[in-house]
């Protein structure tokens, strides 16, 4: 049972009040019709499953009904930060890998999908909006 800080309610709430909604920062390509089938498939179906730092989308379903992001360590289940939609994480795997590296934390892609995604798909998906 997680204890999650809702950045809108500005307090910790019980996990029962929240729904997890998968990986955060999956941006819908701006021009879907211009995507190849492969690119569109990557956007729809491929997600990271890192051992370590993971950015997740949650919703405070029984509460303020706002969506927000959670940076969570999938090994320890520690929640390192929560932040509003439109904001960027301050704790990332890269940032941890660069400086004070945490034991056993695998460097993930900072929230962008990489597993199975082609370079073109990543390029088309990245950088649209946070």
């Amino acid at each position, binding site marked *: 049972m997680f204890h999650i800080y809702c950045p809108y309610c500005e307090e910790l709430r019980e996990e029962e009040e929240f729904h997890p909604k998968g990986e955060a920062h999956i941006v819908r390509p701006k021009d*879907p*019709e211009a995507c190849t089938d492969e690119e569109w498939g990557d956007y729809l179906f491929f997600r990271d499953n890192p051992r370590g730092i993971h950015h997740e989308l949650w919703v405070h379903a029984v509460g303020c009904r706002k*969506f927000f992001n959670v940076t969570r360590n999938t090994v320890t289940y520690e929640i390192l930060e929560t932040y509003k939609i439109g904001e960027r994480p301050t704790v990332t795997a890269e940032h941890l890998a660069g400086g004070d590296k945490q034991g056993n934390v695998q460097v993930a892609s900072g929230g962008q999908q990489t597993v199975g995604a082609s370079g073109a798909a990543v390029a088309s998906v990245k950088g649209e909006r946070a």
Partner: protein
Amino acid sequence: MSKSLKQPNRLKEGGRIDRSRKLSFTFNGQRYQGHAGDTLASALLANGVDIVNRSFKYSRPRGIVAAGAEEPNALIQLGSTEAAQVPNVRATQQALFDGLVARSTNGWPNVQHDLMGWVGKVGGRFMPPGFYYKTFMAPASMWMTYEKYIRKSAGLGRSPMERDPDSYDHLNQHCDLLVIGAGPAGLAAALTAARSGARVILADEQEEMGGSLLDSRELVDNQPAAQWAERVLKELAGLDNVTLLARTTANGYHDHHFVTLHERRTEHLGETAPLVNGHRPSRSRMHRVRAGQVLLATGAHERPLVYGNNDLPGNLLAGAVSTYIRRYGVVPGHKLVLSTSNDYAYRAALDWLDAGREVVAIVDARPAPNGEWVEQARARGIRIIEGAAVLEAKGASRVNGARVATIDAGAFKVTGQAETLDCDTIASSGGYSPVIHLASHTGARPTWNEEILGFVPSLVKGVHAAGSARGIHDLAAGMADGVAMAAQALEALNRPVQAIELPQVEARREGAACALYQIPHEKPTLRAPKQFVDLQNDVTAAGIELATREGFESIEHVKRYTAMGFGTDQGKLGNINGMAIAARCLNRSIPEVGTTVFRPNYTPVTFGAIVGRHCRELFDPERYTALHQWHVENGAEFEDVGQWKRPWYFPQTVNGKKESMHEAVARECLAVREKVGILDASTLGKIDIQGPDAREFLNRVYTNKWLKLEVGRVRYGLMCKDDGMLMDDGTTSCLGENHFLMTTTTGGAAGVLEWLELWHQTEWPELDVTFTSVTDHWATMTVTGPEARKLLAEITDIDLDRSAFKFMDWREGNVAGVPARVFRISFTGELAYEINVQANYAMHVWKTLFEHGDKYGLTPYGTETMHVLRAEKGFIIAGQDSDGSVTPEDLGMQWAVGYDKPYSWIGKRALSRSDTRRTDRKQLVGLKPKDPTVVLEEGAQIVFDPDHAIPMPMVGHVTSSYYSPTLGSGFALAVVKGGHQRMGETVYLPMADGKTHAAEIVGTIFYDPKGERQNV
């Protein structure tokens, strides 16, 4: 006179029991007497009961070994009646009450004469791990037969077969600091935190708080240690910021300091909760604690030594001997041999001597022990055999001797000639294992501490351990550690620390302990008398040795091969010994072998406490509409739709006989087709959408077009996920230029609202639009059938003329004097009006409709009739005819897809993927069974060729199937591969009973294909 006869092992004085209160109880049908303050275990020992159970696998006689949660043998079945049965209670944790009835959980036909005993004796050597499976597997078909008898003689306890008369509940707790364990470290920690003003919960699993202070030989402030505990507890009890929970076990440590505490509230009072003010309080309670910080002061479990026949009744832990003598005034035998690796265990011999009984010898594995208590024992004339250990216990149903010899523990060899000592009790101590279970639940791996010869907990952020729980066994040091760790926790909470003055404890010189686990025997382990490691699961040293020989090298594999530390035991006594033996066999060190993972629950938790009040009528929420009472009073049968209770059908009594569902549905269907019916449609999800960008938003989330929908009009829409698969459907009405009312399926309501919010909040925050659920605000009544207009006209001021109020229009006005919005939409294919009123007035409107409806044959109908009618029209149910893998095109609903809408709406791109363009996708079609009396089974698989060899290629399945009273036949909707191109073809449905049905693929609309009836 008779008293002492009845309790031969009860001391004349001493202990914390109330000798003025006698309690009688029965065990295995025999009546005994004990005292208030006894546990069942102490009372059994007082009465000289040696055998309390038969072992799990070998059916060996077993006695009480321990005095607390770690007891492996004395698992008993409680309860004088069927309803009161409770399995697998540890006799050491069950307070005695008057009239208690207990039985052994094992032993068939009884614990004294056990039929399976011969297997253990005769087959003993030949019952390695996996014995039952290896022996009884062939022929495989007979296992079921064997198993029945094996289970009868082995296994643990049984569940009650009658309804539990007690209730259970949960209490949600929050605190700054949760202290688990009220021994010396826990009390010192709780007091420190309490005086700082923090919200503190102190939980302890025993009947009485105080832990080791309650049976300590040591003095605190020059008084018996228990008095200090009483003083501290009195102060804590008087503080508002402190919650004391005795008889409360911390069972599970979950994420982010969420800890479940199981409080046994009335189990010490009787087998069912006694009445208090005419009410039975809950029997036990689960405290769901969210703590800021947690301090584990869970103490340590003494490790028994592993020697031959160490499971015979009369083998006890040294510490348990002291506990029974000092706390309960019970001395569990007459002639004691103590086998030890350390000083602390000497207290058992000293206590035994103080109790006036004989200590035959102390067998100390160390060459020259010289601690303070060793010297005391010497001074009192106890024989101390140095550098030696008990190799083997002798006896049949109780210890009657101990074979003792000098050993070389390091070389694992017996070095001297064995001598047999005459005794009836062997106490052993191999040291102390910190109770690290809860810390392990957090996922932190414990680390081996060579100094204390035990694993100490690793701690995640916010968890602290103090005292014995982290290997600080000395009393004064443990108390100081409690204060220090509480201060550490308070600092983490940013709270000022108020130091407490520690009591005076006399220092005691203690000699170093030696590492000792399995005692060597003259014979090799595999041939020596059984040396038990895990008594509860009947795991022996030989079993572990065999496991390592068979190639199981990982301790986790050894555990699973042997069952060591399984189930309710969770390795409390045996794990370290088992690891040490595995390490010896594998030629590794204990830290190299590592430990297994301890999992919740620490001790068994009754299902009642887990369930709490969420049972019976309160098992799950039942959602009711505003018309529920009418439905109940008019005999509705109900169907669960999500959490809603919806009328399924309304059986009537015809000629004194209640209609079957089939009859009722046929009558209801015909009433709608021929006259007029009414449905409570209030459960449909309703979302109020406002904002200048509402229309644009709808255009993006629905597949069809919304920009031109006029105020006063209604449109049906399909909603897809971005993979192009149908998610939900419903109608949306334009209430104002910037104002819409969306309806969703009953089951989809919450999901659709969250879906809209997801897209608005994460993708399109620039759109000015809001969504508010009004599902509960509006009650919805569908009046439908050829007579609907005439009926409604009688009670409304709305102009119902077909030119003024067209199909797919909505109007507002009064219905039965209540302001209403009326929508002309149809899910039956007939003329239909959906009346929405504020729910508080719904019953009045509904009843008024019935007052006027008689002459038109107004008939209430339920969801079953609704399904038949909509299916006859080919109207889909999202989630029934679709399953997340079906596109609008698969459903043949291209007419509801706006391919040329400028914005790439949700799902559009996916519809042009190669996979969604396949022509052999499963597509929705109608099925007409060749035999009109057949109603196909929903979910039945479809094949093209019934003569194909099994396995036949399955090409689809039936999604909806009913009998149509209008058509006079069965009919169905189904998905079939390439179905849209297969009209007129015959498909087959092979059934489980061997029959095969044939059906023709037809269009999905079975009734009124042109839609003339709804548009009148």
